[in-house]
């Protein structure tokens, strides 16, 4: 029924798509790992990043990949400010309030985009968007290959940041034991904000890598959010290697499952994996420690 010849290209498609998912999930896993909040605004922040790339490209002719220089710090600032002045100030110790606040933020962001930029889907056509790399067994679009490499690089950078720097040590301390961290003099609010900022900065990078192969609209965040959550859980909350591996695995499942059993089955497969991991190995593939 199915030609085995297309299994390999399908697998490669799945891996490259999975890398894109991983890019979105990396920021989320950091935010979850440190702040322990389910960030409803994650999708909308990705949308903000995508609009950022779009306008930098349209207005200044800046190549999307070059946009990272501008967008990553900008997104970091937005994330830091958001956590410091909005999200961080409301919990009063109650989880449900953080949930509602991130929800409120996402509603505001989505509709702000709708109001300012209108609802129509915007795309960019970079000169290399249709360039394809011939791997012999498959044709991989260049933006996807770049995305794949970038995901690996980003995971590595984050791993180094958290594992090898002072800031990283502070973040790990706060993630593990916020009260203790405060007692030894770590400015916990600052660390929370830094983490949220870094998580959002990851989204900025993801946006730059995503727009050449996707589109932007006010609702584009919803397209990736559930998948991102699935990956974070699969990989282990707070684990970057987990997010990467989880992303690749999910991409592969979606692709091969969809190919062999129909697109619905592919989607179903993702959530069944999600449920199975939560039931049988909730700490995820790589355990839930910040690494």
């Amino acid at each position, binding site marked *: 029924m199915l*030609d085995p*010849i*297309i299994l390999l*290209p*399908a697998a490669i*498609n*799945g891996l490259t*798509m999975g890398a894109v998912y991983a890019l979105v999930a990396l920021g989320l896993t950091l935010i979850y790992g440190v702040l322990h909040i389910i960030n409803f605004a994650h999708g909308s922040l990705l949308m903000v990043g995508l609009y950022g790339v779009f306008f930098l490209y349209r207005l200044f002719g800046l190549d999307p990949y070059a946009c990272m220089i501008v967008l990553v710090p900008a997104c970091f600032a937005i994330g830091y400010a958001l956590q410091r002045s909005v999200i961080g100030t409301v919990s009063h110790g109650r989880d449900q309030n953080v949930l509602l606040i991130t929800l409120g933020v996402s509603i505001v962001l989505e*509709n702000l985009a*709708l109001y300012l*930029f*209108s*609802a*129509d*889907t915007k*795309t960019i*056509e970079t000169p290399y*968007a*249709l360039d*394809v790399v011939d791997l012999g067994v498959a*044709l991989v*679009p260049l933006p996807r290959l770049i995305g794949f490499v970038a995901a690996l690089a980003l995971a590595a950078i984050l791993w180094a940041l958290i594992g090898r720097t002072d800031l990283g040590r502070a973040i790990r301390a706060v993630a593990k034991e916020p009260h203790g961290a405060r007692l030894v003099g770590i400015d916990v609010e600052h660390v929370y904000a830094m983490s949220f900022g870094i998580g959002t900065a990851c989204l900025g990078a993801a946006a730059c890598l995503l727009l050449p*192969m*996707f*589109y932007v*609209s*006010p*609702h584009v965040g*919803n*397209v*990736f959010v559930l*998948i991102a959550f699935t990956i974070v859980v699969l990989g282990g909350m707070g684990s970057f290697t987990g997010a990467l591996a989880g992303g690749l695995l999910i991409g592969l499942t*979606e*692709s091969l499952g*969809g*190919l062999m059993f*129909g*697109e*619905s089955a592919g*989607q179903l497969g993702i959530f069944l994996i999600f449920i199975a991991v939560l039931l049988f190995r909730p700490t995820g593939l790589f355990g839930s420690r910040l690494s």
Partner: protein
Amino acid sequence: MTGKLHPNRRTVLKTAAAGAALGTLGFPSVLRAQATTVKIGVLHPVTGALSYSGTQSRAGALMAIDEINAAGGIKALGGAKLEPVLADAQSRPDAGAAEVDKLNEAGVAAIVGPYASAIAIATTQAAARHNLPHVVDVGTADQVVTRGLTNTFRFSPGVSSIVQFGIDSLTRINDAAGKPVKTVFIVHEESAFGTNTANVLNTELPKRGFEVVETVKHANPTRDFSNIVLRIQARKPDLIIPSNYYDEYVLFTRALRQQRVAAKGIYSILGGGASSYKFVKEFPDAAAYVMDCNHWFDPRKAAAIALKDKTEKKGLFFSYEVFLNYNAVMYLADALERAKSTAHDALNESLASSTWDKHILPYGPTKFVNGQNTGAQPAITQVLEKDIKVVYPLAFSSGNAVFPIPSKV
């Protein structure tokens, strides 16, 4: 870049909003017959997932209202101007239904909208409770006009007739070209119009001698079409028939080009981007030679071209939502003229008996049966020379079909 609301309209809106607030007193609409304005409910999903179509729809309706007012309003009612009462269906049937009640209490004579079929089911039903005339602008599902509601009218074609027309035309075009196409691959979105289209295609195409090699359903939204394209490549169909929304269409055609798929043609039915000026402008290479069976305007009518220019000057694309809504309001205005009243019964009667032919659409003679204009039909368009031309029906055509598409060497 986008059509922002003009300042004077904002005042109108604020007044309308205040009027809606006061409207809880619920004036009986019979009194309206002697008023100097006729309120028209303009109900569309301007927020939520369907917001693009909703805002395009609203723009079309408002342009018609402006034109009618500029030409002197409804003459049979003493030159009464049309006053739009804007409402947001929020891309949900329950919100749409609630807005219908609000509009009714604001004293609208009729409602135009709400673009989406699922929302239309709820809004027409809500309007039926008050016998409030409801002109459905797009809403192609068959159920919109088959529930026996005497207040519901659709000037444009429904999905069954569109798909039938599409199949008939394809057969004709294929025959005329010497039957180069035998195998067909269908890619459709998972909701109502995609599924309905695919079902009818699967039943009818084999009867016309076509072989459907595969039918693939995809979700809304779908992030990646690479695998679907792989399957297309494996099957090597002569013709690809897509039926999806704009976002997915963009990704799909991009994937087709990246994987170097060369079919003898892409013949879309109710395609999201296949007959879209926006798509042609942004992706001229992908759009070339694509055919679509969809709502379209009559390219020979000067008024249609004039509307297109006007729309583009506002920075909007001339999409089907625009001209179908423009048309719906014009049809309604004509009905008001003939009814000489804004009373619900009179207006419903007038809408049902309409034979209005001053429209800009490629339709047969207007005749309403159970709320559906039987003269309505889609058109087959093809993107030729970076423009969208009607290739079928021949009576309305503005270009010759190129079929099969020339193979790229």
